[in-house]
């Protein structure tokens, strides 16, 4: 079974802080994704990566950056956290077979005060 581990379930940060959300997978998947989920807005794609050191913007990349130095780890960085970044953040991975499903972590609920 694929295991996708997000380092924190709950996180509380102050406005202006630099925040790192970590995601680690154990299945050697090339593709990794970061989503945020907000009530009434569903899941929105922030960034994704299809290989080490490769990244592409999703639909809402503003205010975020990512790092993929190793294949198993995909980090989401909030350079200067703001209250509108309070959300549930979900990491997901996917293999290279065309119809392969996404495998999600359990999410990090971030509160920015």
């Amino acid at each position: 079974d694929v295991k996708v581990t997000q380092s924190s379930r709950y996180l509380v940060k102050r406005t202006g802080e630099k925040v790192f959300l970590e995601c680690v997978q154990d299945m050697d998947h090339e593709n990794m994704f970061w989503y945020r989920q907000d009530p009434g807005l569903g899941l929105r794609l922030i960034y994704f990566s299809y290989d080490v050191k490769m990244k592409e913007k999703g639909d809402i990349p503003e205010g975020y950056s990512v790092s993929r130095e190793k294949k198993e780890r995909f980090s989401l960085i909030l350079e200067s956290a703001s209250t509108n970044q309070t959300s549930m953040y979900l990491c997901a991975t996917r293999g290279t077979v065309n119809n392969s499903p996404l495998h999600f972590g359990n999410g990090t609920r971030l509160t920015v005060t």
Partner: protein
Amino acid sequence: SQQGEEDPQALSIQEGENATMNCSYKTSINNLQWYRQNSGRGLVHLILIRSNEREKHSGRLRVTLDTSKKSSSLLITASRAADTASYFCAPTSHYGGATNKLIFGTGTLLAVQP
């Protein structure tokens, strides 16, 4: 990539009843996937139906696909309280291969009353 739209937004049924959720999309697809999300958790993949399939079963789940109407439905038979969750569809377009982004809508929130 395209977003599916789930309908209804919320559904409340009694244990033992069947639950039907619908998904509509706009352009042609390669396949369509359904996911479940328990409260406060990540999404879990349930079933995938390819564009050349019309119906697929997995346990108590039955998925249909009508490409002429650009719609899919997920039926959960003999529902249980443990089926209480949000359900999402994710249509996947023909282009992009394995890196094809999956775009999710707001889902259907199913509540199964014991």
